[in-house]
């Protein structure tokens, strides 16, 4: 591997250090801050892509921090799936960053600009570290960076609603972090180690099954809040709809996925490697909640009048998809969940950025105001339509592929009621997405609603939107690039 083994640590630390250096630049030349903020993310993306080419198929890259061997030092463990997710994080964060450059003046006053970009970089770096780490306490530390920066980013607009939404988020998020910490304590008390690979071996032979079982439940609750799994989702609609749109895109498109990925890792690389019986009951309960999430999120999304609120509820529904895939406990289900993380990330980020684009051009947030938007903002509307198609799961978008694997994964373990619920969820998605598309394309606009708009959003905002929506199409058409390796990885996990 040579120098390549250092790449993951640089992917993580460069955004963090960039965030620390950014205030100097903000002090000297505030104009350059948006461009400078892109540099760390671009370099992380480049490093990740280079590493992707060198990644051994089916293997993983283990990096021993400070040359200490794993149970003693901290390990970074990047496998194919993790690296893949890290690249998604880099890519989507980068696009949202470019989108922010013009958009952010709409929602954030000038004095807070530097802080916005600093927090943005911290959030991205923390997500990368969160995905890459192989140590369970380190997972907690990165989760805290991620949580703190996201609370602050939700509040950054500084108005009444933003602060309230952020506080609501914090009041649910902070206890959940403490619960995770407690779970780590339980796990440590029963095994005496914090390294995930070591844990999976020791969990299997540990005699303290009750402790481990409750630790798993606490992990699911703790990460479930961050991932907005159904009964713990209350913070999400407010936070995601009130945050500035690029941040909504990150929260909905990445943060939720990353938290679900944490559950996936805890489930498969820590607990079930040797002791499936420990987690079976919990996972059954989780799948019930996930099924409820699919339906609840879908129905609530249909009832919304605010566009971003609708997209946020749709996220709750899709978190249910991901969890149903994870709990299906089949290679297809897990691969489907992973692929859904990708396509949901792309599609949701695209939808939120489109919503941001409407806010930027016209200040419209309500779905009804979008009637006839197509005439004036065709590019935004087309991208929105494409991403919605992926959210519904209509071929040839990536949403279809992941839906196929999720349904099939649930089918093949005789969990067909969940398969039906997934399908019902996609009907609900069709209802709420097609309604917006219908308003945009086939309804005449209200008198004077769009007259002052002569052109679409600026191209620096359209480019990220289009890259994302083209991504959903690309990963739908060329899903054969990833699906076999994901299936292999999922089989390896099981």
């Amino acid at each position, binding site marked *: 591997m040579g120098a390549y083994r250092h790449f993951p640590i640089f992917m993580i630390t460069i955004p963090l250090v960039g965030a620390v250096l950014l205030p100097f630049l903000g002090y000297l030349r505030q104009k350059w801050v948006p461009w400078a903020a892109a540099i760390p993310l671009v370099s992380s993306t480049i490093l990740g892509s280079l590493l992707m080419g060198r990644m051994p198929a089916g293997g993983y890259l283990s990096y021993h921090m400070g040359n200490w061997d794993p149970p003693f030092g901290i390990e970074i463990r990047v496998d194919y799936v993790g690296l893949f997710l890290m690249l998604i994080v880099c890519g989507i964060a980068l696009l949202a960053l470019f989108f922010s450059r013009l958009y952010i003046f709409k929602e954030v006053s000038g004095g807070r600009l530097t802080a916005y970009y600093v927090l943005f970089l911290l959030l991205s770096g923390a997500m990368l570290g969160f995905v890459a780490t192989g140590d369970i306490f380190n997972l907690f530390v990165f989760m805290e960076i991620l949580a703190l920066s996201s609370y602050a980013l939700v509040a950054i607009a500084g108005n009444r609603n933003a602060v309230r939404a952020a506080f609501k988020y914090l009041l649910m998020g902070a206890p959940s972090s403490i619960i995770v910490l407690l779970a780590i304590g339980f796990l440590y008390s029963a095994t005496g180690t914090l390294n995930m690979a070591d844990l999976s071996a020791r969990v299997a032979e540990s005699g303290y099954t009750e402790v481990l079982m409750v630790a798993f439940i606490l992990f699911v609750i703790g990460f479930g809040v961050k991932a907005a799994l159904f009964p713990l989702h209350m913070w999400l609609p407010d936070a995601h709809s009130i945050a500035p749109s690029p941040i909504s895109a990150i929260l909905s498109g990445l943060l939720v996925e990353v938290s679900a990925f944490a559950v996936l890792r805890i489930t498969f690389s820590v607990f079930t490697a040797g002791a499936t019986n420990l987690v079976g009951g919990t996972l059954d309960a989780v799948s019930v909640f996930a099924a409820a999430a699919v339906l609840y999120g879908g129905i609530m999304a249909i009832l919304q009048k605010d566009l971003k609120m609708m997209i946020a509820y749709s996220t709750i529904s899709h978190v249910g998809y991901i969890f149903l895939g994870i709990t299906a406990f089949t290679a297809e289900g897990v691969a489907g969940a992973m692929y859904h993380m990708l396509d949901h990330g792309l599609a949701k980020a695209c939808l939120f950025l489109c919503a941001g684009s409407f806010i930027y051009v016209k200040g419209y947030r309500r779905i009804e105001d979008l009637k006839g938007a197509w005439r004036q903002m065709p590019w935004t509307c087309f991208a929105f339509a494409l991403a919605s198609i992926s959210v519904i799961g209509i071929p040839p978008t990536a949403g279809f592929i992941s839906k196929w694997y999720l349904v099939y994964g649930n089918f093949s373990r005789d969990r067909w009621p969940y398969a039906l619920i997934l399908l019902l969820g*996609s009907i609900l998605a069709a209802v709420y997405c097609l309604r917006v598309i219908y308003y945009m394309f086939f309804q005449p606009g209200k008198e004077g609603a769009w007259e002052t708009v002569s052109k679409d959003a600026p191209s620096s905002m359209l480019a990220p939107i289009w890259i994302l929506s083209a991504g959903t199409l690309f990963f739908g058409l060329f899903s054969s690039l990833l*699906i076999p390796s994901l299936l292999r990885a999922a089989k390896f996990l099981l």
Partner: protein
Amino acid sequence: MPEKSTFSVIPLLAMLLPWISLVVILAMPKKSRRLRLWLCFLGSLAAFGVVLVMLPGILDGNTYTIKLAGLVEGLEMRFTVDTLGYYFALILAFLWMLATLYSISYIDHKENRFFAFMALCESFLLGCAFAANMFTYFIFYEMMTFGSYPLIIHEETTLARRAGYKYLVYAVSAGTVLFFSVVAHYFWGGGNLGFQEYGVLSLEMASRAALMTIFFTYLAGFGVKAAIMPLHGWVPDAHPAAPSPASALLSGVILKAGAFGIIRVVFNVFGVDLMRELGVFIVLAVLACITIVVASIFALTQDNLKRRLAYSSIGQVSYIILGVAMLTHDGALGGVMHLTHHALMKGCLFLCAGIILVKTGKKNISEMKGIGYKLPITMICFSACALAMMGTPPSVGFITKWLLGNGSLEAGLPVYIVILLTSALLNAAYFLPIIYIAFFRWDGDEEEKGHRPKLVFGKEADHKLVVPVVILAVLVVIVGIWVTVPGFPYSLVSRVVNVIFP
């Protein structure tokens, strides 16, 4: 599979050609309306030409195949042009070309959107026709479902919106059911979604209940498009609301995509033997019989011409289903051939209705007194097709009825003949009044002094409107007389059916 299977890009080429129209529309400046639309027509003409190129090979028993994308073993996007798929592609591309020509003159607003989605739909439907397995078929079928929505609501009236809404509700639910059945098929069928001549599934693979589930979910999924009776709700609303070329395609091709799906399921997925063992063909036949009779009765009560035609389509598509459900040689022959026959007849009828609407603005049958004198060519073509629908020889309708009758005798169930005769009578009852009103009634005919209007030839409408109508009407007769000409339905369908029922 058949004797020779060769790699070929022709199917892909045929599928991609309509996209030329799309590119043209996006690229050309706003002012060049004529040029743009003619290029669109050329796109569909080229697609038809490319499809035609494959004809000799198909008649030789060749199969063309090309792999588009592969996910994992068994789940791949692949085109394989077998005789049955080619047969569907041929009529589809032909009717589409005529409808595009017709639309150039017919569509007067938002033509960009209309032509773009016409092209998209044609491409997706060709994808359906060429699909080598259920996965591919399902993907193109779903895309076609959503691609045809803008065609239905093109007029953007309240009526059209409501019809479009209804269409979407039916289509989305059907798509979901279909998704379920494809997954179930994949799971129980051992990961084999391909179409094979004698079917893929067997009782060894899964339990009876599982196979029944797969069959009935397929039936419900495709039945919405094929307008089998309890699932037909969107059809009578969508046809009158859509512009006439779109209605012609809806009933000529898009309904057939559903019927084609059922044909594929019965012959290529389940296979005749398994159908007999499961006994589900009875359900299929009963549903088809009910649809045939009830739809015809509903058609009687409609005054709106296109609505009456729509109900007629519902009944006629069920002829195909009935023919397939007989599970006999002649029945299958008649049913599958009716796919083309009905496309020709109903395409022509809807295009005629379009001309009437454009030239006189009349939608209802009761208003059409004496219209045959104003629009003689149109109404002659209309009458020819209407007579064909009743089964009058020499026409394609007669061929269908004859073969279906044979098939029912072969199956030993003469009750089907009763159904067919009833249907023919009802067809006569709802078509003859139109002809009567058009030619033998005129304004003021009940008074003494009423003058019979003068026949005016040659001035009735734009050639782009009339030519497709005439071509179709002529074909209705010609195909009904020279049945065995190579390239006509019999030559292709008999190849398929002779394999299945040796």
